[in-house]
């Protein structure tokens, strides 16, 4: 039975002890890859956690920095032969840092901004949509600096409702989420087309089924995440599979069982499917063959957390010539809100990914498939043509 340590972070003792420091995680860590710093690596971060828990190191700015610089891609977890649960240790650590409000240098404006983001905008879909319209207006007036790398929003897409009913008793739920629905609603339209092409009836979640809380978990705002998770579970009753086309959301929802630790949550988690995973289970609908080669970029939370990244290949393989990357699924640096909170590191990490993509296909403007809104937006900001597998499939659907 695992026990919680009595240190200031309250981490799981056995998890802390389980790292044998072999270093096999290092090449898979995006921040280690671009900095070469031990404390920017999983092994170094665990060593720092151990020191803090043992009381031999204070929680200071450098510790907080080492923890907040982690993208939480969890590639180290997949690479770890001893399966050290690094993702959960990092979430526990961030939760402790957030809850205890250590007198570190996190500034008041930053905290205020976080409050607006996590408490006001993300959980209230209407506010998010309103903010998106404002953003769109600002974009039209050229008030949004390019370096923020925000997506080009389409008023046409935003003005039209998604043609999927809320609630009911569908064959499968289409989880629409918060940012996806505001910024990438066309991808939901593609997802709905493909799902219906398999003969399934679909519905969107009922009231409250918007924000899954993934970003909250990453930021250590676990109580808020729990509240959101309960809302999500209540919004999609029954036994029908919950289809998620955002890898980050899907990964978080598959971990509701751990987050809430209730039978209901575990049962819900077992129903969650990534879009491609569900399409492959259900049977890929008939498509025509396209000549476009597609570079497959695996979102970390699809590959390292859900570990269902192979389904994308099965779903797209019949219709497209797929090109694999030779980088062991190294993170692109998007990491949920990471691209916004750590722009320098996120850009350095992305540069590696962009090189890997261009080298793999041997041409400057390849089409890239990526099943996560964060990666899509982050890589698009580097000038790549990135599309969701659902968009790609919808284009080649027969009839």
């Amino acid at each position: 039975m695992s026990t919680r340590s009595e240190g200031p972070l309250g981490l799981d003792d056995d998890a802390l002890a389980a790292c044998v420091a072999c270093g096999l995680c290092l090449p898979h860590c995006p921040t280690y890859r671009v900095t070469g710093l031990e404390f920017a690596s999983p092994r170094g971060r665990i060593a720092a956690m151990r020191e803090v828990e043992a009381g031999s190191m204070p929680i200071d700015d450098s510790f907080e920095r080492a923890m907040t610089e982690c993208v939480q891609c969890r590639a180290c977890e997949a690479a770890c032969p001893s399966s050290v649960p690094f993702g959960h240790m990092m979430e526990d650590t961030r939760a402790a840092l957030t809850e205890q409000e250590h007198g570190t240098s996190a500034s008041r404006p930053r905290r205020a901004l976080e409050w607006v983001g996590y408490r006001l905008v993300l959980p209230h879909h209407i506010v998010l949509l309103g903010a998106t319209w404002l953003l769109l207006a600002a974009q039209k007036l050229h008030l949004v600096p390019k370096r923020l790398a925000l997506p080009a929003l389409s008023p046409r897409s935003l003005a039209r409702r998604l043609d999927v009913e809320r609630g009911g008793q569908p064959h499968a739920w289409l989880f629409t989420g918060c940012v996806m629905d505001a910024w990438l609603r066309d991808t939901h339209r593609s997802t709905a087309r493909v799902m219906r092409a398999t003969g399934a009836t679909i519905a969107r979640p009922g009231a409250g089924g918007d924000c899954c809380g993934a970003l909250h978990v990453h930021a250590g705002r676990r109580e808020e995440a729990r509240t959101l998770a309960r809302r999500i579970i209540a919004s999609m009753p029954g036994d029908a599979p919950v289809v998620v086309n955002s890898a980050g959301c899907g990964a978080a929802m598959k971990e509701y069982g751990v987050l809430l630790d209730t039978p209901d949550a575990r049962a819900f988690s077992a129903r969650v499917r990534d879009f491609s995973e569900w399409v492959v289970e259900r049977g890929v609908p008939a498509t025509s063959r396209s000549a476009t080669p597609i570079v497959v970029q695996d979102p970390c939370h699809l590959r390292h957390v859900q570990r269902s990244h192979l389904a994308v290949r099965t779903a797209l393989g019949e219709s497209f010539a797929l090109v694999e990357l030779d980088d062991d699924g190294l993170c692109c640096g998007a990491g949920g809100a990471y691209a916004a909170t750590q722009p320098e590191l996120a850009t350095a990490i992305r540069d590696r990914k962009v090189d890997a993509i261009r080298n793999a296909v041997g041409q400057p403007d390849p089409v890239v498939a990526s099943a996560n809104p964060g990666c899509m937006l982050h890589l698009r900001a580097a000038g790549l043509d990135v599309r969701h597998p659902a968009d790609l499939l919808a284009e080649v659907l027969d009839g």
Partner: protein
Amino acid sequence: MCFPDSAETIAAAVRVARRHGRPFVARGSGTGLAGGAVPVDDPVVIVTTRCNRVLDVDPVQRVAWVEPGVLNLDLSRTIRHLGLHYAPDPSSQAACSIGGNVATNAGGPHCLAYGVTAMHVLAVEVVLPDGSVTTLGGLEPDAPGYDLRGCFVGSEGTMGIATRIAVRLTPNPPEVATLLLDFTSVDDAAATVSGTIASGALPAALEMMDAKITRAVEDFVGAGYPRDAEAVLLVEVDGLADGVAEQVAAVSEIGKANGARHVRVAADDAERALLWKGRKSAFGAIARIAPDYYLHDAVVPRSKLLDVLRRVYAIADEHALTMMNVFHAGDGNLHPLIAYDRRQPGVWEHVYEAGTEILRTCIDAGGVLSGEHGVGLEKRDLMPLLFSPDDLDAQARLRDAFDPDGAANPEKVLPRGSRCGELTAERASIGDKSCPLSTHALWWCRSVGEHIGKLAVGRPRSATGSWKCARPRA
């Protein structure tokens, strides 16, 4: 601590350290298993992780110049499209750096057929401990003069730091086959190893894992390693297609004759990669059994493999410790691994004692202290188990020729008292200027040597009779 990003800045870091009278130690990925990069004596730590460029690849001459921080597997990846790879493949190859490989003269499963790091390093540009930069060895087949490159490879940072390395690139074999043989006893597996080598076959790799480690590894990779086997052998043969087929048949036959239950040949590259991923994750998977481990790295003559293995398990039983073996069976390079939990009181003493007994067993069987991990800090004080004072003195004088001030990675590899010459300093420090060196040296060598001998093994080494220093040096 500093993070240079080029050959020039590494050299500058060494010069700055020396100007301030500080020793220095290089650190790569920190995957070493003998503590070679552990800072002792408050040195400047020169981290090479940012020197990670492959500078030049010549596919015709099959040579690449790389910076020391390039990861071993990254190098092979970079040249894969040329049909080439870098042959030495330590288990940590995904994470370890070429610079670290050069420092320890690293081995790996495929070194059985292809040779260890020293055979794949043609030249090294090094910054010497005085801050000057020079190139040892060369790209020509037989570089003139003494083979100082050979000295440097495996010197564990005690002769300077490699700043650029010219490595030999190996063509990918036209055909590869990987076999997994499983046995109901370690004895049968060991007999298969001896049988294979005795038959004249030279597999590219010949690896053994025992029951516990096989199960831990299988929990991680799910490669289909048999959970009920007492031992498995992972054998790889490569070469031209016909020869490979023949070797597969030969190894299978020898295995079956020695009681192999199944012989599985990997069907494709993916299956082969998964099997190797299992083998190469073995050490990292130990925490599935216990959170700490003490790993040894001794080499014994292959003819003694079985006897030594039995004794190794017996030693662990006597100390009630969990013992696992995963090793390069083909070249007799044992990796007895003791898994334990440091939170358990008193366990470390047993682990250490058992470890020393194991090493003594290996050396008594005609083996050596280290196969590929190096000596570093961990085995430094065990050096007198294997080397006579003459041997140690010769090594110390070679080291001094590179680093007369002892600034490069101090306190590593050679135990204190290795040099008879150290006496001059010791004597000066105790204010004794009159004592004739010859008698004093003898006394010092004897007492220091005995002291180390006792520390290490509890008794002086008897094979050489005494600790007498034959050639005291003024």
